[in-house]
């Protein structure tokens, strides 16, 4: 029983980290209509900035640098590239982001090389014991922080002028623009928010259980794509739910792999994608996504 509970809690805490990334996908998508394939490398970039600055300025200031860097790069990508596309439409924007991803990832990979950069997180490999269940401190912190961040996001979108403006812009851009909402500003805010979430997720992805930063982090960020798609493309709560689901299912599949041998070894790596395809077959708009009528 405690084994089961450990797996569940592990899965949920990992799921919350994925949710941070998935929410970034959803926010960028609703605010600018871009499928941000470069999000994984922004996650890596945030963590990389933390790792290279922390020996000189300490861990917490470095986290701030990482957050600012990732947010800044997001805003720049949007301002310099996405808004200047020769043919702005979701398809070309998605392919553009693949190009940005190749550039960012290649350059970061080259800089990191074969090293594993330590992140210097103060919690290291500590564990927290609670009612017979041991959880890594990093994961617990990640979960708490993610919940705080999501509460903040809820407040932003529900209670502030900026957030309401972003929702209006997402619901109907041209009308929102006529009502005096500056789409350039809501778009930039969306990209900056996504960058912040990406950097935070990057810190937790690379501090535990990974020993530090390696380019493969961008790959684990890919797991957030099924999480985002599961939840619904345009829904931040959906992204959170999707992240939790993916984390939970992955943890349980890996934890009980010995009982699931008929599915082949390493099934835990693909189960999020299988889940995504099944959900898309049954509910193409995702779990919490809005189903739109076709507009002429």
């Amino acid at each position, binding site marked *: 029983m405690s084994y089961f509970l450990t797996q569940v809690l592990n899965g949920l805490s990992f799921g919350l980290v994925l949710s941070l990334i998935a929410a970034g996908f959803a926010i960028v998508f609703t605010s600018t209509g871009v499928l941000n394939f470069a999000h994984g490398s922004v996650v890596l970039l945030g963590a990389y900035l933390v790792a290279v600055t922390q020996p000189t300025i300490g861990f917490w200031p470095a986290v701030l640098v990482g957050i600012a860097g990732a947010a800044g790069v997001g805003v720049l990508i949007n301002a310099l590239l996405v808004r200047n596309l020769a*043919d702005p439409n979701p398809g070309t924007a998605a392919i553009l982001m*693949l190009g940005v991803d190749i550039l960012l990832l290649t350059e970061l990979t080259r800089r990191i090389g074969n090293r594993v950069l330590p992140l210097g997180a103060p919690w290291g490999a500590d564990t927290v014991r609670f009612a017979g269940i041991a959880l890594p401190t990093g994961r617990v912190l990640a979960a708490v922080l993610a919940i705080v961040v999501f509460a903040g996001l809820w407040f932003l979108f529900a209670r502030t002028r900026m957030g309401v403006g972003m929702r209006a812009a997402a619901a109907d851009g041209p009308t929102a623009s006529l009502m005096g909402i500056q789409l350039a500003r809501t778009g930039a805010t969306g990209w900056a928010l996504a960058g912040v979430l990406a950097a935070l997720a990057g810190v937790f992805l690379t501090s535990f259980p990974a020993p530090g930063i390696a380019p493969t982090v961008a790959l684990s960020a890919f797991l957030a794509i099924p999480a985002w798609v599961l939840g619904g*493309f345009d829904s931040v709560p959906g992204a959170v739910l999707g992240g939790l689901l993916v984390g939970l299912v992955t943890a349980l599949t890996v934890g009980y792999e010995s009982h699931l041998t008929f599915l082949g070894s390493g099934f835990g790596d693909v189960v999020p994608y299988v889940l995504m395809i099944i959900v898309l077959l049954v509910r193409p708009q995702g779990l919490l996504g809005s189903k739109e009528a076709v507009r002429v």
Partner: protein
Amino acid sequence: MSDLPRRIGGLVLLLVALALPLVLEDFWLQLGLFVMAAMVGAIGLTLLVGVAGQLSLGHAAFAAIGAYVFVWATSESTPTLAGAGLPAVVGLVVAVGVTALVGFAFSPVASRLRGIYLGLATLGLVFVVRHLLLNLEPWTGGFTGRSVEPFTLGGFSFSNRDPDYLAVAGVEFEGLHRLWYLFLVLTLLACWLGVNLRSSRTGRAWANVRDSETAAAAMGIAVARHKASAFVVSSGYAGLAGALLALAYGRLAPDVFTLTVSVEFLVMIVIGGLGSVGGAMVGALFVTALPLVLTQYSDAIPFLAAPGSGGLDPATASRLLYGLAIIAVLVFLRGGLTGAFRRLRGRFGGGGPVAASGAPDDTRPAPPTDPGHQAGMHPAISKETAR
């Protein structure tokens, strides 16, 4: 405007392609095989993405299916690995057929999702197929993969033996030379079929669905069926590309077909210009040849270091180059290389009135990008996830 210059140009290119094996070294022949295999896949993808407006990130998966089915069909059964022992031509047909069938099995998803949503769903396929390749060992050989039987046609083998010695104009024709012609025939076939499909009734229906599903439905086009058919045709192409890759490599392993391959296919068609068959082929040449050529000549090019020496190695350099190329094409070059070429011709009087006015001629549907669609940028309008 007469078609004559284009036809003469095509004929010259064909003659050059026919004569190249007489002069090229093995490295370039091998490179040519990879390029032609990539061309076939890129043509199929440009029909799906450029003409039908559906994004796919799953073409590595379809290529993998094509490759493995081809190898399974043409190999003899051994105690450890299954094989059907069919003739190679039949194997090729089976490979394309099975891949198209898998595409068809996926079409309930393909016909319901639009554009980038489909791209995300197909992303999952790459990981699922890789998992299957690793785990279905009796068929795929698992992690180590399996070797590919040489292609034979009526006793003639496209390898270094059977006949052992074959020479044309004093040049000994070995496996690579022979495969070159096989690949050339299949690539031309794929190209011819692609061009004709695009301007056929079906191709125009695809373009119509891409531009507006509602308008297409109002014109009596079965939207779901055409989205599915574009997907099936495109996966068939990917299957053929996979089978050709299998022949070019001579050995298959799951690591050949990673997500990177899917992305590279997309890069090819974007650089060439979405929706253009010729552009897809130019893009395939660029993306496939660049890393190999840079690697081959790394010591002759400044800034480049040998792989593993810590400097800017050729693989990294080529990735940076085509990352930049995608961004440059999408930001500065509307319609990719073909679009730029067409505008140049229009500007310097080579083109007819149609090209000169900047409007796309009707046999070539404009990339999904003409000015009328700028509104598509906005999520509120692109949010047609389901019908």
